[in-house]
């Protein structure tokens, strides 16, 4: 791959119908580039859980993928309510999701742990009232 490929998608709050479309697009691009299926799947799990977080918690936001030789960096940025206790939010089973998210099969406090498990680098920064940024990298 000569040049890095950059993909950016806007994600709309509470739009459960469109949720996952950005992640599928990113996964399809990775597949098209000939990246191995296990890496594509890890990237898909990260983007999908992160996209659902934007839909459920973040008030919408932006998801980006930067694909370069040997790595893919996936980031989300939102200007939602922020996370008061990031350490707690990363713990498996901790959730603040409402009924709508649960009806869709999410909101069980698995999202951030799933993202962390699939990432080689995982950084989350959040400020209450300002929003949250998540940066992950998968190396291959």
């Amino acid at each position, binding site marked *: 791959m000569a040049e890095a490929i950059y993909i950016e998608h806007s994600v709309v709050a509470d739009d*459960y*119908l469109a*949720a*996952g*479309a950005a*992640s*599928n697009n990113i*996964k399809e691009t990775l597949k098209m580039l000939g990246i191995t*299926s296990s890496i594509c*799947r890890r990237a*898909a*799990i990260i983007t*999908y*859980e992160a996209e659902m977080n934007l839909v459920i918690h973040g008030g919408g936001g932006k998801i980006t993928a930067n694909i370069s030789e040997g790595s893919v960096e996936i980031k989300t940025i939102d200007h939602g309510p922020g996370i008061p206790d990031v350490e707690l939010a990363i713990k498996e089973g901790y959730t603040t999701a409402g009924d709508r998210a649960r*009806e*869709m*099969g*999410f909101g*069980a406090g*698995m*999202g951030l*742990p*799933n993202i962390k*498990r699939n990432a080689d680098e995982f950084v989350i920064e959040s400020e209450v009232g300002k929003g949250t940024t998540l940066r992950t990298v998968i190396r291959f």
Partner: protein
Amino acid sequence: MLFEEIAKAVCAKVLCVEEKVSTLDITKAYASDLMSDVLAFCAPGGLLITGLTNIQIVRTAQMLDIPGVLFVRGKAPQEETINLAREAGIPMLQSKYTMFEACGILYSMGLIPSTSDAER
């Protein structure tokens, strides 16, 4: 086990992508109503058995390379779910059996758990 054999075993109706049911070969399955659980623990290539019927079931299947879905408890998926499954080429079945019954039947017929390393 061919997808059509799975359909027969759990008395299921084929909801979409009928053209694949006689050729799609399935050897393993994962059952859950929690998509985050599926994302955490389900290995690629297995049948997804679930009682949820919303569009995110198809998205989850797309993310994990899940080739087919079986809806249990007689649940009928929403139209947008079927439309996206058609677009993605993922055949879906609808059975009246409970998840426990469907899993029991398919397990006894030789399907094995489709779990990733994370669970073991």
